[in-house]
């Protein structure tokens, strides 16, 4: 799991913890658990929401760590400005990743789905939560193997990314056709920029 601080946000939003899980086996039950948690009543509901208080992201649609961190930054910024389009900073990260403003589409595409086999799990919190606690809570919720983020680009489904971001006919992609690694770099550059400027691309 990787952790870093966001330098200029209020304390309760200043720490970011993220981990990459592959061979995820129970994504369908995880998704059901999340849905149930969001509507559960009383203290039990609170505890359940606490237990799953993470952002569960479809790893194959993430093109780089920069892509992920850009979405996290813009989501936390929206939270500090009271401009969330979704309920929590964690759901906002998923919304930020989707090229369109449609929230349910964002959840369906970038959130955990029944067929997810690789997930990026993110927790934004204050310094009061130690990395050990966060990591323990993450492992308790996700059944899969944690791997370093260097593996991320092998998991990326570049065709899906290009489809969602409508990069098919773009000249930048045509220019790089011969060099697949360069093409990935170009796609990543466009995707990162699109996520960063989503708030003004309307």
């Amino acid at each position, binding site marked *: 799991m*990787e952790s*870093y*601080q*966001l*330098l*200029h*946000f*209020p304390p309760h939003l200043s720490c*970011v913890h993220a981990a990459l899980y592959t061979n995820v086996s129970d994504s369908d039950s995880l998704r059901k658990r999340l849905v149930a948690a969001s509507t559960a009543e009383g203290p039990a509901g609170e505890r359940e929401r606490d237990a799953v208080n993470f952002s569960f992201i479809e790893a194959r649609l993430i093109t780089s760590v920069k892509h992920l*961190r*850009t979405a996290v*930054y*813009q989501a*936390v*910024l929206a939270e*500090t*400005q009271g*401009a969330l389009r979704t309920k929590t900073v964690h759901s906002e990260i998923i919304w930020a990743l989707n090229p369109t403003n449609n929230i349910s589409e964002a959840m369906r595409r970038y959130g955990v789905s029944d067929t997810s086999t690789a997930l990026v799990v993110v927790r934004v919190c204050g310094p009061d939560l130690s990395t050990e606690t966060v990591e323990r809570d993450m492992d308790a919720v996700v059944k899969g193997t944690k791997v370093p983020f260097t593996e991320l680009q092998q998991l990326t489904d570049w065709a899906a990314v290009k489809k969602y971001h409508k*990069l098919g006919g*773009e*000249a*930048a992609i*045509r*220019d790089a056709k011969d*060099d697949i690694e*360069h093409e990935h770099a*170009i796609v990543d*550059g*466009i995707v*990162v*920029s*699109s996520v*960063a*400027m989503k*708030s*003004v*691309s309307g």
Partner: protein
Amino acid sequence: MTSASLDLILASTLISQGAEAKVYKAKLSSDPSDSEILLKHRFRKGYRHPTLDGSLTRARVAGEARALLKCLRAGVNVPGVRMVDAAEGVLGIEWIHGQSVRKLLPGGAGEDEDASGDSEPEAADALREYDIPVDALMQLIGQEIAKMHLADVIHGDLTTSNMMLRHPSSFKSRHPTLSTELVLIDFGLSFHSSLVEDKAVDLYVLERAFSSTHPDSEPLFASVLRAYEQRMGKDWAAIGRRLEDVRMRGRKRSMVG
């Protein structure tokens, strides 16, 4: 109650200040592997009505970001967008490690109008460091502007200060002979247009900037135009003709009393 972005700016290093925006070097996170970015802050203008100032600033941050994305999609070398806080007028873009073309050409180093020959040696040395002959640099400029115009993006302020070469030490070049790449920057005045007129004016503004910043640079600009012509293909004829008109008209508008 200050905002996150204003705190970020307070902690950043001021690089330069123009009429509308201050430019900083900044870091968004504590992670050393996260590279630094360039922050452009369109600060509040006291003379403008707050509502007008707010909506104008938001519109301009949005405009610049969109122009950059349009260029990225069209394959034009421009800095990527890293962060946007339109309400505070802050745009974060990729930090380009390199040098502005202005400083790499004779006459560009000195700020003073009649920068004499003394700036020749420094400029030449700098260019060697980027391992690129002047004519090849002119080719890159012409090509990059052509790609931008083919995407119907008008820069609006083309000068040699708004172009940079990436430093070879931090750039993996795919070009057979060149170890650097030309990047267009500062799309603050850019707009979308497919009109031949606007593209011709973009070139004319660059031509004037070239001649006033870099003495006897006519041949340099000529090779920029040749590369531009090649890359524009069939669109060049109309633009080339219109550029002639624009040169003749000089200061464009006759003034009704």
